[in-house]
């Protein structure tokens, strides 16, 4: 009895133990135990074999592509997403509600559908690709295509992170700065941007993390050329198709560690930005 009251604060509400036990059991069975299988499987082979798998040239190339393209796409999402959030929060224009609703489309659209749609747009005969081809820009079946797909996926994360913060930002600060003689650009750089920066960073990190693991929207537009446009999740699938479970688990373990690191970073960022909001 004493241990229980130490574990949780007493409450008159019923149902804690059934709800808590069920939640923990379900979480363990569906998520935690299966996920641990990845690390146990990767660890079941020797270090030498493990290292050989994740340092193979095609695996290293896929990590480089996945991290590089996710980084570039995250930055592109940050720029475009910030612009969209700015316009949606601060200006009035016809069709604004529709534009706002459409921002979430990349989230609602199945990734495979997005993948084939983007591919058909950006091939050399596609609606967009045909205008880029004369300029010597190839998108479909290149690394640029991977970036385009990942930017599509990342956009809503930035918009939805920045939008509330921009909406809540105190306009009086801007008016005070303006009355003190600041130019518009100075107000933006010195007053507005510092307020929005943590949210923008969070949005970027969320977009980056999602891009790292993204599969469906990328594999169509990338063309999956060995050493050139193979993303890391694709190599996991390839290893599985060859029944190389340990190899697949090894690649996956590295990706999981990277994702969790980003996740911890986001949490730390959000704690810091909350502190910023509370003190300032």
């Amino acid at each position, binding site marked *: 009895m004493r241990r229980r009251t130490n574990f949780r604060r007493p409450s008159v509400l019923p149902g*804690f133990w059934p709800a808590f036990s069920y939640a923990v059991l379900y979480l363990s069975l569906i998520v935690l135990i299966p996920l641990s299988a990845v690390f146990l499987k990767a660890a079941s082979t020797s270090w030498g074999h493990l290292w050989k798998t994740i340092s193979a040239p095609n695996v290293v190339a896929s990590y480089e592509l996945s991290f590089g393209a996710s980084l570039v796409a995250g930055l592109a999402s940050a720029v475009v997403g910030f612009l969209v959030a700015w316009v949606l929060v601060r200006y009035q224009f016809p069709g604004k509600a529709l534009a706002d609703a459409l921002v*979430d489309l990349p989230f609602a659209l199945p990734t495979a559908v997005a993948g*084939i749609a983007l591919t058909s747009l950006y091939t050399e005969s596609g609606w967009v690709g045909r205008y880029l081809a004369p300029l010597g820009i190839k998108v479909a079946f290149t690394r640029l295509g991977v970036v385009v797909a990942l930017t599509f996926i990342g956009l809503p994360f930035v918009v939805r992170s920045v939008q509330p913060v921009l909406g809540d930002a105190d306009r009086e600060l801007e008016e005070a700065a303006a009355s003190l003689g600041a130019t518009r650009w100075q107000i933006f750089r010195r007053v507005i941007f510092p307020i929005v920066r943590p949210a923008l960073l969070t949005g970027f990190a969320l977009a980056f993390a999602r891009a790292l693991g993204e599969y469906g929207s990328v594999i169509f537009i990338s063309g999956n050329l060995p050493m050139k446009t193979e993303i890391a999740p694709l190599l996991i699938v390839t290893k599985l198709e060859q029944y190389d479970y340990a190899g697949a688990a090894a690649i996956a373990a590295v990706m999981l560690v990277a994702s969790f690191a980003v996740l911890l970073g986001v949490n730390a960022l959000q704690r810091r930005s909350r502190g910023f909001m509370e003190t300032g």
Partner: protein
Amino acid sequence: MSAMPISSAPPAAPSSIRPPSYAAQDPAVVRWGLTALALGALGLFIVLPLVTIFVEAFRKGAAVYLAAVRQPDTIAAIKLSLVAAGIAVPLNLVFGVAAAWAVTKFQFKGRNVLISLIDIPFAVSPVVAGLVYVLVFGAQGWLGEWLAARDIRVIFALPGIVLATVFVTFPFVARELIALMESQGTEEEEAALVLGATGWQMFYKITLPNIKWGLLYGVVLCTARALGEFGAVSVVSGHIRGETNTLPLHVEILYNEYNYAGAFAVASLLSVVAVITLGLKKFLEWKTGRESR
């Protein structure tokens, strides 16, 4: 203090309702220039792909479209997708309510750890989500031999597809309810108990009406993702036409067979679901009063 990490569901859209006193001072050139740029970007990145799907789907005419949609393999894929979502969503719904109840109405040690753990599936690549079940239930997996001896198929069969779907949609309902119920506190439930309600009466008459719109919001997002999941399901399905092929996998198969009209026709069905999801999402955000937050 709830952690808000990697999410597949971007937080809901708020919109500022304050009068744009200062923004009105932005020169018209800047205002319209930036608006045009932003709308151009949305048009290029979001509207154009959506339009393409329908144009490609009907490129060879309505007859080809209807034939592709009515094909037995497509019907089987629709059924399988609905069955998988129909099992996965209620499972995650029950979990979401239980987890949110434990986490928001009580204070206990490790509460924040539990909240963070619930979000893990959002940080995991869909491909890895499929892989974990192959490692557990696959032929060379932990339970592979045991299952084979009893002739139970999990991987390359419906149970695997359902498990993968459950995994990727795991946090949707829970995180929605946790955010909502945390803001509601425990006073109404305590009052009901003081007035003599039983636990279930309290739940049905007080808690459920309070959370119904948020619950529905979580269910909508969960269902949309369950119907559209590709990577995780692709790993565990085995791609057997007419048997273990969900709708998104069927799109891939048709596309890889160069049957573009067919692929886009099936894709257009999923796109309609996506557009309906966006509409429902907006409606429920309005219902839960997110807009004014």
